[in-house]
C-alpha cells in the first residue's frame, strides 16, 4: 500500500479509545450540529468550486427477476464527508452498497472511486475502499487475530504493519481479550466490531459501512463513532447506511433518503431536514405511516 493512501494512521486509534473511556451514551449527548455545513458542504451542487469527488454513482439499476431493487440512483460524495443513507426496510440500501463495493454486478450504471471504475478497474477502485457488508459471513473458523491478518495480507500489507495495526485496532475497538478466540464464538456486536476493524486495516480513502451499529452496544458505538469522526477529520470519507435516524442525523453531515430503490432527497443534512428532525422528514418522504387502527383487542388485556 502506498503511503499516500495512509490517510488514517491507525496508531492514533488507540488514543481515541483512551479518550472515550468514560462511557458516553449517544443519547445523553445533545444532538451535535453537523460540522461546517455551510463552509464545506460536500455535495457539489452547493459549491461553486468543484470539490474532490471520492465516490460517483450514476444511473445505478439492479433488478431481481421482475422486482426492481434499485432504479437509477445517482450520488456524488465529496472527500471528507460523512455521508448517511437512510431508508425503510427493503428500500435497496444494501443492494446499492453491494454494487458500490463491487460485490454485486449492476444491471446498468457506473460507480467510480477516485476516478477508478469499480467494475472495469476493480483492483485500483477496491484498494481505496474499506468495506463492511451487512449479513455476509466471515471466515469465522479463524480467530480474530487470524482474520485481521488474513484481511491485511489479502490487502497486500506486510507482516510488521499488520501486527502494529492489529494491536491498535484491537485496543480501539475493545477486542484485546477476544483476538485469540474463534470469530464464530463472538457475539453479534463483537463480530461487527471485528469486521469494522478488518475494513479499516489498510487505511482506505473511503469506508463503505452497511449497518455498522446494528447490535453494537452504546458504549462501543460511541467509541466507534469517535474513531470514524477522527478519520473524517483527517480527510477520509465515510458512507454508512442505517435506519437509526438519530444516529445518522447526529454524526453525518450529509444524507440521502432512499425509498423503493430511488433517491428521494439528498444533500447537506440541514438542507434535507429543512428545520425538522431527520426522522420527521424521513417519515414524510417515505410516506409509510399507517394509523394504528383495527387492533382494539390489544387494549383489552387478557387477564
Amino acid at each position, binding site marked *: 500500500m502506498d503511503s499516500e493512501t495512509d490517510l488514517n494512521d491507525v496508531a492514533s486509534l488507540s488514543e481515541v479509545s483512551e479518550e472515550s473511556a468514560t462511557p458516553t451514551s449517544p443519547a445523553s449527548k445533545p444532538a451535535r450540529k453537523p460540522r461546517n455545513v455551510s463552509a464545506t458542504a460536500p455535495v457539489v451542487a452547493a459549491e461553486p468550486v468543484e470539490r474532490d469527488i471520492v465516490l460517483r454513482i450514476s444511473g445505478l439499476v439492479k433488478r431481481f427477476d421482475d422486482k426492481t431493487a434499485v432504479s437509477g440512483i445517482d450520488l456524488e460524495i465529496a472527500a471528507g464527508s460523512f455521508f448517511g443513507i437512510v431508508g425503510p426496510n427493503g428500500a435497496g440500501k444494501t443492494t446499492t452498497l453491494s454494487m458500490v*463495493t463491487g460485490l454485486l454486478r449492476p444491471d446498468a450504471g457506473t460507480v467510480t472511486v477516485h476516478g477508478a471504475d469499480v467494475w472495469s478497474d*476493480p483492483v485500483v477502485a477496491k484498494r481505496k475502499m474499506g468495506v463492511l457488508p451487512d449479513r455476509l459471513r*466471515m471466515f469465522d473458523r479463524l480467530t480474530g487475530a487470524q482474520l485481521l*491478518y*488474513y484481511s491485511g495480507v489479502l490487502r497486500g500489507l506486510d507482516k510488521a504493519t499488520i501486527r502494529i495495526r492489529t494491536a491498535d485496532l484491537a485496543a480501539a475497538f475493545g477486542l484485546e481479550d477476544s483476538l485469540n478466540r474463534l470469530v464464530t464464538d463472538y457475539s453479534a456486536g463483537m463480530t461487527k466490531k471485528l469486521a469494522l476493524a478488518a475494513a479499516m486495516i489498510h487505511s482506505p480513502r473511503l469506508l463503505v459501512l452497511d449497518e455498522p451499529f446494528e447490535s453494537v452496544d452504546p458504549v462501543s458505538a460511541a467509541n466507534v463513532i469517535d474513531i470514524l469522526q477522527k478519520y473524517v477529520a483527517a480527510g477520509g470519507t465515510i458512507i454508512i447506511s442505517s435506519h437509526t435516524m438519530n444516529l445518522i442525523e447526529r454524526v453525518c453531515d450529509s444524507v440521502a433518503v432512499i425509498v423503493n430503490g430511488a433517491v428521494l432527497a439528498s444533500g447537506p443534512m440541514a438542507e434535507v431536514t429543512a428545520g425538522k428532525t431527520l426522522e420527521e422528514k424521513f417519515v414524510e418522504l417515505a410516506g409509510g405511516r399507517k394509523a394504528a387502527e383495527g387492533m382494539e383487542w390489544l387494549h383489552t388485556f387478557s387477564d
Partner: protein
Amino acid sequence: MVAHILRLKLTLFVNSFRLSFWQVVGLAVGILYGFASAVFVVAGLVALRFVEVDVARATVIVVGSVVVVVVTVLPLILGTEDALDPRKFGLFGINTTKLSVALIIGAVVSVPAIVITVISLAQLVTWSRDGVSEVLAILSAVLIVATCLLSSRVSTSLAAFLLSTRRARDLAAIFSIIALLALSPVIILVLTIDWRHRGLELLGDAANVLGWTPLGAAWAIPADAAAGNIDDALAKLAIAAGWVVILAIIWRVLVGAMLTTPLRQPHARTYAGLGWFDWFARTPTGAIAARSMTYWFRDSRYGSSLLAIPFIPVFMVIVLAVAGIPLNELALLPLPVICLFLAWFVHNDVAFDNTAIWLHMSTSTIGRADRWGRIIPVLVLGVPLIAVGSVVSAWLFGDWVVLLSLVGVSSSLLLGGLGLSSVASARFPYSTVRPGDSPFSQPQGIGSPASGIQAFTFIAIIFFASPAIVSAALGFIYGSFWHLLALAIGVGVGLIVLTAGTAIGARVYDRRTSELLVFASQN
C-alpha cells in the same frame, strides 16, 4: 392445546412442499423412500402369516428391534431442525405435562410416525393365528407406536439440548463418523455369515435375546403367545409397558428441564498466535492456503471427510478380501483411492465458504491465488502421503517395480484431480452444508443438482488418470518398461492437468466472482 399443536404440525408438513423445485424433489424422494420401505415391510409381515411360527417370531423380533433402533438414531444422524423442540413453546406458558403430551401427539404427523403405525398394524395380520395372540398383537401395536414415538422424541430433544454449543456439535459429528465407519466391519461380518445353513438358527438366537430387551419386547408379545408361551408373552408385555412408562417419565422430565434451562454458555477456547499463517508465505496465495489448512483441521465439514477418506479403501479391501482376492494385491489399492478422494473432495470448495467469499472479492484477490491457495493444503497432505504410501504399498506387495506405477497413478489422480477440482469449484458450485451446520445435515438452498456435478468430476478425474492406470495394468503383464511409462505418463499428465486446470479455474473465477457471491447468498 393438543389440537393446536397438531394443526401447527400439519401446517408445517404441508408448507414443506412450498419450497423450491429441487427441495420438493428431495422431500418427495424421501417420502417415497419411506413408504416404499413401509410397503416392503408390510408385505413381509403379511407373508409371515403363512410361515411357521418360529421363523415368523424370529424375523419379526429382529426386524422390529432394528426398526426401533433406526427410529431412535435416524433423527440424530440427519440432524434436521426440530419443529417440535419443547424450548420453542417456552414463552407460551403452557403446563409442562400438557405440553409434553401435546408434543408427542403432534409428532404423529410425520413420515416416520405414519410408517411405524402402518407397520405395527401389519403385524396384526402376522399374528391373526389364534384369539389370544390377536388380542395381544393389538396391545403390542399400541406399545410399538408409543415406544417408537417416545424414543425418537427423547433422542432428538436430548441431542438438541446437549449439542447446543458449537464445539459439542463439531465433536459429535466427528464421533458419529467414526461410529459409522466402525460399523462397516460388522456389516461385512453379517454379510459373510453362511445364512443358508445357519441363518435361521442365528436369527432365532438373536430374537431370544432381543425379545427380553426394550427394543424387541413389544414385538415379541404376540410372537411368544403364538408360539404357545403365554408366560413369556405376559412377562414381555410387562417389560414393554414398563419401558413406555419409563420413556414417558424421561420425556416429561426432559421437557421440564429444557423449558427451564437457559441455553448453555459455550466455553470458548483460545488459540494463541497465528497458527498456520506463520507457516505460509505472506502473500495472498500463502494466506489462503493457511486459511484453508486451518479449516481442514478446525471445521467439522472438512474434518469428517479427512477422517472418512482413509476408511473408504479399508472398506473396499475388506470386501475384496472376503471375495477372495489375495491380500498382497489389495495392498496396491488404498493409496490411489485415497489420492482420488482427496483431490475430488475440494471440487466444491468455494461453496464451503458460503458468503464469506466476499472478502476475496472486495480485496480483488486474483483467481490464481484463490485456486492455488485452496489446493496447496491438499498437496501438503497428499505429496508426502504418496512418497511414504507408495513405498509401504510396494513393500507389502512384495515387488519394488510397482513403486513406479504406484507413484505414477497416484500422482496422476492427485495432481490431475486437483486441476479438475479447481475448474469445478469455480464454474459449478452447488449448495452444500453451511458453515457451522452438522456435516450430515441436508443443504438448504437452490442451485444446480449436486449429484450430477459430483459424478461428473469423479469420472473426469479417473478419465484423465486412465493413461497411467492402463500403462500400470500393462506393466503387470508385459514387465517393468510399462511401469516406468506409467510413472512418466502419470506425473506428466498430472502436472499438465494441474497447470491447465488451475489456469482455467483462475480465469473462470476472475470472471465469475460476483456470480459466485450471488450463488452463495442463495445457499
